């Protein structure tokens, strides 16, 4: 008897009798003998709750976490503050033990949260419609590219080299399937090389993808990219950090057709890379080409406001082979957390997070480059991340920092060989002056 399986021997006996079976084995006679596993699974014995808790605690103890380290690492996953109420509310079990809201009468909680999420994501991005979230930023970007290919019937995607390397890799894996070419636009001085981009965009271009702030934290000048893209009737896709939208102009205002990004920094833990949530927002014109679930407002038979999953005729369970995306799930629970986060931070709080991140990252850049050992890699306006370089091997720098309890930067040489000793550092509102000063001191003496 296992604690999660309630029916006793006596129950089993009763149930078998009622259907005229002798044993549970009788119910498995349809599995041919030669396909039966005639041995026990090679797994351990069942653990009690105490044994499990101890084992998991020991295993987690082998990791160094934010409890042990001061984090200056970002590169797509960020250590922003998460208000306490996020976990208390999102982990009400009525939310997390529910399925997809296919029975809307008893799923108004989930549906209304999605509706509120959609409202706020539209407002933040300056777009007209958004779905209920997707697997992560990278796959959301690949889905946006697919939308562009389907909509323009063109077979070429241009992506800047200043877009996150993993996002570009995922994009390529997806586009390869459709035989869509992915062309990378060069970078110059840490931003997209507009002159090179001009030579690439043409009448085969389905979309141009630019990250802003880009992988190096730098704010790109989107106006010229927007112009080049739209002159050639391509779609302009923006990959954005939602925290930056606390202060930067909305992609909608800058002319984006599709806005995607990674929503982890909205109230979600780092979780060693997942689960996070990708977001995808677009214009009314492209709404029906958008993949993923969408909640909409309607009324019940008594005339009460009610919410329901809508525009489902786009989705895989109806379109089947004619669907343009196979996505079923959204990151429901992660979107709940993002919604609670955005509501809690609200109008003033999100702006404050963005402002403090800018102030602190700029202070850190100044402190680190004060002595001559570290230099900025680029001289461009940045948001919460910046790249520096030195004579010292970047992995050595990180090792020294780790000894001092600091989680150092992302080693840029891995993806950009020309930046061999480059380090990408991230400073959020969570970092204190004291922590930043210590970082600078340790780096100075390496």
């Amino acid at each position, binding site marked *: 008897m296992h604690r999660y399986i309630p029916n006793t021997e006596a129950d089993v006996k009763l149930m078998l009798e009622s259907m005229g079976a002798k044993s549970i084995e009788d119910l498995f006679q349809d599995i041919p003998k030669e396909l039966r596993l005639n041995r026990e699974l090679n797994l351990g014995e069942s653990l009690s709750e105490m044994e499990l808790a101890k084992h998991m605690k020991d295993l987690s103890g082998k990791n160094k976490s934010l409890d042990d380290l001061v984090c200056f690492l970002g590169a797509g996953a960020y250590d922003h503050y998460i208000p306490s109420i996020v976990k208390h509310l999102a982990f009400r079990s009525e939310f997390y033990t529910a399925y997809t809201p296919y029975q809307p009468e008893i799923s108004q909680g989930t549906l209304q949260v999605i509706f509120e999420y959609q409202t706020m994501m539209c407002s933040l991005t300056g777009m007209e419609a958004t779905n209920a979230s997707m697997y992560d930023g990278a796959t959301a970007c690949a889905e946006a590219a697919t939308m562009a290919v389907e909509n323009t019937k063109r077979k070429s995607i241009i992506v800047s080299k200043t877009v996150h390397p993993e996002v570009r890799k995922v994009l390529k894996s997806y586009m390869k399937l459709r035989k869509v070419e992915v062309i990378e636009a060069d970078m110059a001085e840490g931003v997209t090389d507009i002159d090179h981009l001009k030579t690439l965009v043409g009448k085969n271009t389905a979309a141009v993808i630019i990250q802003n702030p880009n992988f190096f934290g730098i704010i790109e000048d989107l106006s010229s990219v927007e112009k080049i893209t739209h002159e050639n009737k391509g779609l302009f896709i923006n990959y954005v950090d939602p925290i930056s939208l606390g202060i930067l102009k909305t992609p909608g205002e800058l002319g984006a057709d599709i806005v995607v990004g990674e929503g982890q920094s909205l109230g979600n833990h780092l979780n060693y890379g997942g689960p996070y949530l990708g977001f995808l927002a677009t214009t009314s014109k492209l709404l*029906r080409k958008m993949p993923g679930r969408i909640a909409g407002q309607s009324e019940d038979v008594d005339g009460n406001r009610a919410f329901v999953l809508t*525009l*489902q*005729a*786009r989705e895989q369970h*109806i*379109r089947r082979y*004619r669907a343009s995306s196979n996505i079923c799930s959204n990151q429901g629970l992660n979107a709940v957390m993002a919604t609670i986060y955005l509501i809690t931070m609200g109008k003033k709080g999100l702006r404050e997070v963005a402002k403090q991140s800018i102030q602190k990252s700029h202070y850190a850049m100044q402190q680190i480059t004060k002595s001559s050992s570290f230099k900025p890699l680029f001289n461009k306006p940045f948001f919460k991340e910046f790249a520096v370089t030195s004579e010292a091997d970047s992995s050595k720098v990180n090792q020294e920092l780790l000894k001092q309890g600091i989680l150092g930067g992302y080693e840029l040489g891995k993806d950009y060989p020309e930046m061999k000793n480059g380090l990408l550092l991230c400073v959020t509102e969570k970092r204190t002056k004291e922590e930043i000063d210590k970082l600078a001191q340790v780096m100075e003496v390496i």
Partner: protein
Amino acid sequence: MKTVAGLLYSKEHEWVKVEGSKAFIGVTDYAQHAMGEIVFVELPEVDDEFSMGDVFGVIESVKAASEVYIPVSGKVLEINEALEDSPELINEDAFENWIVSVEITNKSELEGLMGEEEYREFCEKEE
């Protein structure tokens, strides 16, 4: 089931009304009934060219998406923009509310379509 005399019908339940070299195309009453309440009609663009049997639009209900096949090759002259805001017009009168008009490029294709009586029989068999 309603049908209209003088129109041509396809096995995919589209109707064609020929006026010289121009043809108005819509879906039949039988089709709208099978689809249920229509919530969206995806229209092609003017000047798009289609060969017989190509998908030229999609009609969506809450639980289904049905592709609409062009019964005769042609170039789109007009699209019925009223359907963009009021897709339910097809439910109200499928024969009054055409979807597109085309310039027919191959008139001989019309010979393969059914007349009213033949179409009625065809539908009865489908039941």
